[in-house]
Every structure is written in C-alpha cells, then in structure tokens.
C-alpha cells in the first residue's frame, strides 16, 4: 500500500471525479440550458484543460505512478497507474475535450431530445469513463470503465431517440461494443494465466505458452478492433457517429476511438511482453484493408457527418497498420525502427483527434446554422459563416495530409518506417509490405480527394438552397472551441520535434528504444535511424510565406490597377444556376465508377422524356449482404429450431423429463 499519495495521478483521479460531479450537478436543474448547457460544460472544459496539463507534466517527466483504491472486487481493489503511455492518451483526452466541451457549451439547445441536464451527466460520465479506461491498471477496473464509456456514449448517440434510424444505430453500436467487450473479457481471462490476479503487473509477470498468447492477442484485436471500427467490424461506426450530436461525434471519433488504440498497445506491446513478429501481420493487413475501404466509402458519401465517420475508419486503419508495423519490427529485433513506426502511430492518434474533432464541430455549426446534413443542399457557406469556414479549412488541409500541417507529419513518419521493410529478415513479408506502402499512399491521396469534396461542396460555390441565405455564423463559445482545435493542428504540425521528444518516453516504455535525433536544430525533425532525412516545417512554412509575400509585393509593385467584380464568366454561358454545380454524388462519381465492385448501388435514373427528371442513388456496403444479414438469418433459423422444443403439449413435456431421466440414469449406471 502506498503511504504518500502520488501527486499527478491523484490529481488526475480528482479531476475525473470532478467531471462526474459536474455531470451530476446537471441533474440539479435538468431543464435549464443556461445552467446545464453553458455553465457546466464550460466548467468541464476547464477541468479537461487541467487534466491535459497534469498528463503533459507526467509525460515529460516520464515517470510512473501507482495508486490503489479500496473499491471493486473483494480481493481485487481498483489499481490505477499513470505511465507515459496512459499519460499521452490522457493528454489527448484532456486537450481535445477542452475544445469540444467549450464548443458544446455553446452548442446544445432546447429540444435536442434528452434534457440538457441529463445530456450533461451522460457527457461528463463519458469523459470520466474514458479517463478511467486510461488509468485502470487491472482488468476489472478497465472493463468496467470501458463499458461505462460504451454505455454513456450509447445514451448520447440515442439523444434523439424518436428517430428510428438513430435507435437502430444505437442498438447496433451497443451490440457490437458488447460483443467486443466480451472478447476483451476472455482475452484478460487468458492473460491472467491461472494466477487469479487480474492486475496488469501480474499479467506482465504471467508466462503464457505461445499458443495462448496468440489467442489473447487475437481476442484483443477483435475486441479493440470492434471499438476502433476495423473492417469488417466497422459497420456500427458510420451509423453511430453521425447519429450523435456533433460534439459527441467529435468525442467519439476524436477521443473514444483512441482508447481502443490505447488498449491495443497496452495489451499487444505491454502486457504480452515481447510479441512475435508475425502477430503484427494481422493488424497490419486489416489496417491496410480498412484504410482503403474507409476512404473509398468516404468518397461516395452524401451526408457530411457520414463522410467524416468513414474518414475516421480510414484513419483508424492507418493507426492499426502502424501498430502492426511496430510489432513486426519489434518482433524481428529492429527496436529503433519499431520505435519510429510506433512514433508515427502515436503521432497520428494525436493528430487525428484534433483534426477530426475540428471537422465534426465544424459540421455541427453548419448543421445548426442550416439544419442540413446532406451535402447536396449546402454550398457557399464561406460567405455566410467565415469563422467556421476558415477554421474548418485548416482541419481539411491537415487531414488531407498536406505540409506543413500535422496530418503530414505522421504520414511522413509512417512512410519513413515503411521504407525499412526491405531490411526485414523474412522473405515474402518484405515483399508484402511495400505493397502496403502503396496502399497507404493511395489512401492518403484519396483522402485529399475526399476532403476537397467535403470542403468545396459545403463552403464553396453557390448556395444550393435559398434557405441557406439565412445561415448565421457560430457563437462565441463555439468559435473558441474551433480555434483551440485549429491551433492544436497548427502546433502539432509546426513543432514536431518537441512532440517527438515528448513521445520518446512512450516508445521507450513500449519497444525499449527511443527515437534517435540526428539533427541538432530545434526546428528540424530527423528521427530516422541511420539515414540523413529531415523535415523542418517551420522553415518550410516561412519559405512558402516568404515567396508568396514576395510575389504579392512584386505584383503589386509592377501593377496597380483595381479589381473589377463581374458575373461569373463560365465560358460565356449566361444562365448558370446553383443547380448546375457538381452535387456530392457528381463529385464522387469517378470513385464510384472506378471501385464499382466495392459498392452495392441502386440507381433511379430519369426517363429520357421526363418532364421533371429525378436522379436518386443509394449506396450500401456489400458486407451487410455478405456477412451480417446471413448471420442474423442463421440465428433466426436456429431460434426457430429451438422453438420446436416448446410446442405446447404437456405430454411432450413429460416425455422430455422422462427421456432425460432414463438417459441420465443409464449414464449414471455406466459411469
């Protein structure tokens, strides 16, 4: 038992409790938006900031703190642990939740279905439980926090429970999450290795046979993969994330998915000790598959939040590919490279949480301003809501992986680590992985396509509906939230070296190797072991800025005439209307055309002689037809078979007992 309380960990726990209290406070005046909506959410945001600070401090110190609370099972009190890995993800949680909570403070209004006070409770329980997942140091505490997280998010998803689709989405989400949690449960059952101690350090100590270890790894992959939306367990994600109110979608995509990554790293690289290299292939291949699948489907979406959800799937694929790569390298005795891959993975987690939260919040503002989620009815909002538009642009460029923003850094790191695949001692694998690299690159490029579609159709062009004329820009709190996240994207993009330094402790903890830092300059990132490769976003940015400004200056200098505004030329075609712009479907058409086999498309084409031509197209995932519907049917058939047992005639029931009796007696006699 610890005599003196560890400062940072205690602080974190206190903050989590404070979150719960804030949530409960919401029940005091559940009806009032001003109190529950504004005040409490802002309070929660401040707590989040505090959490980020504490976690950051512990990350930089690189130390580990433990704490035991007298709760939980009789001989298994709740163990808590704050080590670099958990502090990194805690930081992520705190930092992005600050922006999201501030935004939420301005976002929630009356008539969102659930009462604001209840919403506040669920929201803060959600936050606190995520913190609990990251701090838990024993299987039981972990699972409890994990499921509370699922549950609270489920209630948040079904905020507008009157809409059947949303109910369906919530049900699907909870079902998949529960099955995943059961897998995790079994995984821990294997990990505890008969010691009946469910603490993580006991699991680290337990010695498993390779077979059992592999089983545990596989179960963990299924469990956490289901949460992270890994293909083919992703089906719940594109329904659930859009269904939730936008701040919640932001939390789910931005933070909750990362808890799955955390769990995967915790189990795969920490609890299982030294992983075998070929375990890595499973997450790698699944991850690559997921990247491609997610981005292709994102490209053909017409609902802006669905589009973002699929893009989240893609990014999770990227992360899991990174994890797989890490394990492959770590298992083949290349710790330095493994550290590089792990670095890319962690970095991308940070990036994605900021970028995706930013984008989801942006869509939230659009949704409130216009009441529209369908891209086909938006457009030209950059004039009506400049704040949202310009801040979202940063997120868009970042997630498209453009330098000098943050999305690029992690992709750069990942590609650098991919380039080492050739040195792997395993034939065939070092062939396979370059293919993987090709997929990653293709995914990144497609992400660019998706983002142009996303941004261009929502914010640029002419408004596709007259109602959009009344769209208003977002309020003050919302602006602060967006601004915070946008700044986060910039900072992560411009000061990678500092971030990498901070992450060093984590890589050291997980693969036992920090990333070498070749360059002496504070502005230059050169993490690749034994290679003279470097990337300096600051220089990059300043150079670009310098050139651009110089150009502007020169142009102004040599040419001083005014700019005239006129009607759009459009090749002299006068009667151009807003309806002649590309719709979302139109913009996605090339992708749809190219990757036909992926989709299950149903078209409704107008007749040649149609007075009022209508064109409708619905795209479903084949996986429903191929996997899930047959599964459901099979269970249904089994249920019918089982129902035959219960067919109402008492004689038959008596016969059951009779036969059972005789059989058992016979068995008893024989044995």
């Amino acid at each position, binding site marked *: 038992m610890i005599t003196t309380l560890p400062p940072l960990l205690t602080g974190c726990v206190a903050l989590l409790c404070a979150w719960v209290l804030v949530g409960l406070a919401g029940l005091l005046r559940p009806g009032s938006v001003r109190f529950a909506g504004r005040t409490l959410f802002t309070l929660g945001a401040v707590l989040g900031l505090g959490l980020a600070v504490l976690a950051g401090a512990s990350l930089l110190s690189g130390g580990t703190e433990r704490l035991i609370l007298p709760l939980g099972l009789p001989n298994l009190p709740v163990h808590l642990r704050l080590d670099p890995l958990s502090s990194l993800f805690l930081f992520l949680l705190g930092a992005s939740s600050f922006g999201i909570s501030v935004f939420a403070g301005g976002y929630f209004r009356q008539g969102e279905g659930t009462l604001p006070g209840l919403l506040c409770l669920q929201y803060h329980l959600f936050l606190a439980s995520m913190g609990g997942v990251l701090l838990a140091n024993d299987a039981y505490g972990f699972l409890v926090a994990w499921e509370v997280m699922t549950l609270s998010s489920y209630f948040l998803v079904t905020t507008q429970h009157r809409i059947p689709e949303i109910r369906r989405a919530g049900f699907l989400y909870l079902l998949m999450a529960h099955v995943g949690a059961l897998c995790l449960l079994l995984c821990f059952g294997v990990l505890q290795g008969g010691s009946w101690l469910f603490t993580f350090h006991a699991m680290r100590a337990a010695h498993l046979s390779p077979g059992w270890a592999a089983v545990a790894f596989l179960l963990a992959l299924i469990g956490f993969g289901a949460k992270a939306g890994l293909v083919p367990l992703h089906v719940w994600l594109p329904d659930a994330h859009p269904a939730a109110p936008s701040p919640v979608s932001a939390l789910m995509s931005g933070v909750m998915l990362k808890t799955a990554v955390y769990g995967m790293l915790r189990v795969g690289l920490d609890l299982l000790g030294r992983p075998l290299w070929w375990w890595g292939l499973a997450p790698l291949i699944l991850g690559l598959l997921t990247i491609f699948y997610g981005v292709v489907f994102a490209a053909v979406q017409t609902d802006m939040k669905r589009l973002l959800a699929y893009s989240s799937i893609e990014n999770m694929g990227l992360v899991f590919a990174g994890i797989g790569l890490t394990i492959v390298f770590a298992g083949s005795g290349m710790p330095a490279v493994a550290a590089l891959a792990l670095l890319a993975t962690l970095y991308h987690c940070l990036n994605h949480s900021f970028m995706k939260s930013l984008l989801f919040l942006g869509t939230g503002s659009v949704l409130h301003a216009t009441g529209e989620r369908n891209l086909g009815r938006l457009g030209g909002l*950059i*004039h009506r809501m400049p704040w949202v538009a310009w801040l979202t642009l940063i997120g868009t*460029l970042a997630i498209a*992986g*453009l*330098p000098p923003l943050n999305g*690029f850094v992690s992709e*750069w790191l990942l*590609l650098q680590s991919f*380039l080492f695949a*050739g040195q792997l001692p395993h034939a065939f694998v*070092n*062939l396979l992985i*370059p*293919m993987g*690299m*090709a997929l990653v*690159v*293709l995914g*990144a490029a497609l992400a*660019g*396509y998706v983002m*142009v*579609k996303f*941004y*261009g159709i929502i914010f*640029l*062009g002419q408004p596709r509906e007259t109602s959009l004329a009344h769209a208003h820009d977002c309020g003050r709190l919302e602006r602060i939230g967006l601004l915070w996240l946008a700044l986060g994207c910039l900072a992560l993009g411009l000061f990678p070296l500092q971030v990498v330094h901070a992450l060093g402790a984590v890589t050291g903890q997980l693969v036992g190797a920090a990333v070498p830092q070749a360059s002496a300059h504070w*502005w*230059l990132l050169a993490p690749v072991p034994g*290679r*003279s490769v*470097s*990337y300096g976003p*600051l*220089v*990059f940015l300043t*150079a*670009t*800025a310098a*050139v*651009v400004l110089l*150009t*502007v200056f020169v*142009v102004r200098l040599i040419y001083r005439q*005014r700019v*005239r*505004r*006129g*009607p*759009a*030329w*459009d*090749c002299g075609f006068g009667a*151009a209307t*807003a309806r002649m*712009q*590309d719709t979302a479907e*139109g913009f996605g058409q*090339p992708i749809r055309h190219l990757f036909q086999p992926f989709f299950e498309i149903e078209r409704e084409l107008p007749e040649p002689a149609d007075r009022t031509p209508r064109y409708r197209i619905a795209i479903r995932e084949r996986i429903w037809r191929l996997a899930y519907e047959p599964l459901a049917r099979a269970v249904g058939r089994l249920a019918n078979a089982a129902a035959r047992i219960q067919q109402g005639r008492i004689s038959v029931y008596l016969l059951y007992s009779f036969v059972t009796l005789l059989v058992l007696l016979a068995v008893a006699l024989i044995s």
Partner: protein
Amino acid sequence: MKPVDWITQVLEMAAALAAAPVFLGWLNQCRAWLQNRRAPSLWLPYRNLHKLFHKEAVIAENASPLFRIAPYVVFGAMVLAAGIIPSMGTRLPLVVSADAIALVGLFAAARMFMTLAAMDVGTAFGTLGARREMMVGFLAEPALLMVIFVASLISSSTALPVITAHLASGHVGLSPSLAFSAVAFILVLLAENARIPVDNPATHLELTMIHEAMVLEYSARHLALMEWAAQLKLFNYVCIGFALFFPWGVATGHIGPAGLLVAIPALAVKLAAAGLGLAVIETVSAKMRVMRIPEFLGTAFLFAVLGLLVHVLLKA
C-alpha cells in the same frame, strides 16, 4: 551551410523562374516542327505573361477571398518546389527542411488550393475541372511517390540531394527497377502537367479540358500567376526526372564557379533533350477519353510498384 549555398539556392529558384516559360516555348516549338507548323517564338510564353499582367482583373461576384489567395499560394509552392529540387547543385539549405515526400506534399497542396479555387465560384465547368483534376491527382501522386521510393530505397534516403548524389556517384549500375519507375514517371509527368494524351493544353473545347477548366474564371494577373505556376510545375517535374534518372552534371559539392560552368550547360542540354522527347510523345499520341485516364495512371502506379518489387527482389 555556407553563404555560397544560399546563393546557389536563390540562383536555382531564379533560374527556374526564368527558364520555365522558355522551356514551354521550346516544347511548343518542337511540337510545331514535328507537326509541320510554323513555330511560334521561343519567347511567346513571356509575352503572354506580360500581357496578362497588364490587363484589368475581373473576378466573379460570389468569389471568396480563397479565390484571390489561391494563385499566389500555388505560385509560391511551385517556386519553393523549384528550390528543393537539385537541378544544378545538391547543397541546398532548403532541402534539409523538405525531402521528396514533402515535395510531393507541396504539389498536393498546390493542387488542393487550385481545385478549391476552381470550386469557389461555383460554375459547372469549375467543379468539373476540379473533379477531374483530383481524379488525376489521387492516382498520379502515389505513382510519383512510389517512383521516388524506388530511388530512395536504392540510396536509402528520401532526401533528393542525397539520392541524386548517390546516383550520380556512379557506383549504381544500370538498374531495372529504375527503368520501370522511369516509365512510370513519364506517364505521371504527362498526366500531372496536362499534356496530351491526358489533357490538351491548347484546347478550348470545354468538355474535354481539365486544367483549363479550373482556371476558366481567372483573368489578368491571377491567370498569369496560374499559367506561370503551371510552367514551373512542368519544369520542376522535368528536373525531378533529371535528379532521379539523369543526375549527370549536377554539382554535388559546394557549387563554385567551376561547378556552375558544368551544371548550367548540362541542365540546358538535358532540358532541350527533354523538350524534344516530350514533343515527340505528344505528337505521336492522341488525347484519350477522360474515363480512360484512371487506366493510364493505374498503369503508371503499377509500373512504379513493380519497380519497387523488382528492387526488393533483386536488391538492384
């Protein structure tokens, strides 16, 4: 980094700025000759730019600030790219802050701004152009990246100067993987710079055009910047080709007067040859349908990946 390197750096950018229009002019001349036309003047692109700069700019009413910023950003990106690619010397201060991947990223950024600007006014042709451009882009970028990766696997670095220096140093023999990726690169180059058979820079038939469709709404100085940026892009791509496949004559050490004496003529010769080559390709091939482009670029991508596999297999 010595001041001399900074000089080289500036010199390179300046050279690119100056040479890009001329190179286009030269390309057009070659094409004209091959097609038995009277060749336009070598300096025609300059005249065009000059003319455009002195016109009055007209911008659509519903154009957002993004529309006006885009040309400068695109132009700036291209100039910076020119500064990263070792066309004459490899000791470039800027290079340490941006390797080949960053270079591709830079091109991508330029493309992104261009397409967004094209969608900004919200005309049918603008969005059409943007869509097609992205369709080209999402296949061309990976292909280009894979091409670069082949070279960087050979020289175990993604920094262009290192690659060039390593390849130029001569102890890399003729390697099949490079051959594969060279083919891929040429296909990418054609697609990325809106050359026949992917796009026809000379056309004004709206339905077939890609690049032109995007800049339809631009006029005067904005258009000039866009055009110039396009020329720079072509120039940059050609220089990348040199850096990867024909790194001869590039000064790998500190670039003194002597180095210049070698580098400049070498570059000029290579450019001339490249222009001729491109002209030949463009003359013998016909413009393809838009929906064929993915196949075209898919081939390029495939070649690049093949190059990679060949390298891993043969370690060559």
